[in-house]
């Protein structure tokens, strides 16, 4: 197994993996999307809403605001233990973070309320981005609400998913049959949207630096009049890309997903043992 970090930014990670079966990488990818917990607002209680927006509209917007959840993962109870108390309208402090919004526009002009105006009861759980516009208040408009955030999983609602994109990409390989390639033909160069080909004196060549940008559209194959171009993908070599919403770092998302996968597999083997299947 080989692993190379191709690209790493604050909210993005790109890994090159070889000699790992696709189903292993795919289980990690699916767990990143639907199982890794993160914080999001799940209940909003309005005490006053004299704005032009419906309660539901505001509550939906608040739910989509990403909240920092890195320390919260160990601090708060897992989602399964919290949903029962939420249904009973109880918000115990070991499950829920309270975020208050109290805003009024006493002037005549317009006032935009941003995510930074949410006052959190826990300084470690707050909106990731400060300038998300949540509401616009006209003259005399007023809003007062309390919102409760808890840990949740992406399979319940996408707002709890810590990754906005988790993608596996195949690694392309382009073969050019020299005996068939027509020297004056430049069709594959013209048609390629990612500029993978470059012109040489003898015909067409694949640019090594640009091949990774290939999006496997197969246009070069289709347009070639002599069927000299062949596009294939490498076996057991993949690129895994994870783009975070900001609630967790990409590194933490990967580590958590592996931990959850391990937990699921070991629980399965333990159950098999209890049933006596492994004897």
């Amino acid at each position, binding site marked *: 197994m080989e692993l190379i970090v191709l690209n790493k930014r604050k909210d993005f990670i790109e890994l090159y993996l070889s000699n790992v079966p696709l189903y292993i990488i795919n289980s990690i990818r699916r767990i990143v999307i639907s199982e890794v917990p993160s914080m999001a607002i799940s209940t909003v209680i309005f005490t006053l809403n*004299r704005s*032009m*927006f419906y309660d539901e*509209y505001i509550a939906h*917007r608040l739910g*989509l*605001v*990403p909240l920092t959840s890195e320390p919260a993962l160990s601090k708060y109870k897992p989602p399964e233990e919290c949903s029962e108390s939420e249904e009973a309208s109880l918000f115990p402090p070991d499950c829920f973070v309270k975020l208050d919004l109290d805003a009024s526009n006493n002037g005549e002009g*317009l006032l935009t309320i941003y*995510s930074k105006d949410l006052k959190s009861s826990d300084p470690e759980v707050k909106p*990731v*981005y*400060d*300038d*998300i*516009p*949540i*509401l*616009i208040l*006209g*003259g*005399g*408009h*007023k809003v007062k609400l309390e919102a409760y955030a808890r840990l949740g999983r992406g399979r319940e609602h*996408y707002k709890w*998913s810590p990754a*906005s*994109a988790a993608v596996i990409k195949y690694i392309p390989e382009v073969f050019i049959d020299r005996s068939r390639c027509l020297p004056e033909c430049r069709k594959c160069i013209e048609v390629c949207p990612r500029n993978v080909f470059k012109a040489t004196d003898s015909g067409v060549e694949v640019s090594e630096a640009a091949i990774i940008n290939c999006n496997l559209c197969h246009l070069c194959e289709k347009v070639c009049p002599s069927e000299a171009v062949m596009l294939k993908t490498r076996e057991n070599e993949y690129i895994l890309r994870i*783009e975070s*919403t*900001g609630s967790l770092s990409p590194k933490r998302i990967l580590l958590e997903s592996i931990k959850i996968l391990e937990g699921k597999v070991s629980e399965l083997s333990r159950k098999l043992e209890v049933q006596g299947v492994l004897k």
Partner: protein
Amino acid sequence: MIKLIFPIRCFTCGKPIGHLWEEFKSRVEKGENPGIVLDELGVKRYCCRRMFLSHVDIAYDVIKVSRKS
């Protein structure tokens, strides 16, 4: 789907984009090319890009006819 204010996340992929709208709007109003502004803001996918390019701020018109207090 009525978008009164600019959405917080992209409808299709879920990338948070709400915090980028005001910068995008002010820069485009100053005459910059919207495509280049989106590239610089790091909005790469076309699902997120259409959120910016197709958005009309209706809220500012609706608020004029809304009830006072």
